């Protein structure tokens, strides 16, 4: 395995690892359900993307043909991750999960829950 290949694989692994770690730290440090959702979406995109890309390069080199299994994992993650995040946020909204202290426009939670028109509510929510 030549030096440059090794370097690419290591750098990608490092980047992936760092982002997954940051995602976990975010999950731990952030204060409410909504902000916590931001951390995993980050970890799955760049973090896992980096790790899987390095796996593709390494395994392709090792086996002599392009290994695309890992690319499929990325594909399925990219399809499913936003849906999960969206549903979790939606559930949190409908259960009126507590929001963090400085959250702005909290009134929109009720607007969305009760399917009120935003136009009627715009005046009262913009000055929060």
């Amino acid at each position, binding site marked *: 395995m030549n030096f440059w290949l090794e370097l690419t694989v290591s750098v990608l692994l490092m980047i992936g690892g760092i982002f997954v770690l940051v995602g976990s730290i975010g999950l731990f440090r*952030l204060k409410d359900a909504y*902000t916590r959702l931001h951390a995993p979406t980050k970890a799955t995109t760049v973090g896992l993307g980096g790790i899987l890309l390095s796996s593709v390069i390494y395994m392709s080199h090792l086996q002599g043909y392009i290994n695309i299994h890992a690319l499929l994992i990325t594909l399925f993650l990219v399809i499913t991750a936003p849906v999960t995040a969206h549903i979790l946020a939606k559930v949190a909204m409908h259960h009126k999960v507590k929001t963090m202290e400085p959250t702005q426009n909290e009134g929109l939670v009720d607007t969305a829950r009760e399917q009120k028109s935003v136009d009627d509510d715009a005046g009262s929510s913009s000055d929060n």
Partner: protein
Amino acid sequence: MSLLSRLLPTPGRSAILLVIWLMLNVTVSLGHIIFGSVFAIAIPLLCAPLQISQPRIKKPLKALKYFFMVLGDVVVANVQVAILVLGPISRIKPGFVAVPLDIKEIRPITILASTVTMTPGTVTAELSKDKRYLYVHVLQMPDDEQEVIRFIKDRYESAIKEMFQC
């Protein structure tokens, strides 16, 4: 011709299924091509009654361009959010915004919502029943909430509109 179109109601989907089958098995041997083709024909046929007619992507090149634009945005936004998360938590000012939508059909809206969720810093939370507003949770709210709305509309929604030509 009519038999062909009846057997393959969605040729694109069948092709994708076959390719994914071959990718899963990491092979292009004849046996797997035949086996995959059977799936590629049977699955869309079985799923055909579930289909709701959706607008098609009229400009595939625009879609490809959009894909790479989003990829770039995801990386940039990731770094921004990573800095936010590692910095003092008190600096984070989350908030909700209601993004008014110009696009009406479900498929473009789904793509927009997924994009918004994939780019770190924003998560879609709800779509209003009349499909006129997308409620988005923003991790770091700028002073002017219109900034977020304008960003989503100008950067993503207009691109999707071009893609579907609607």
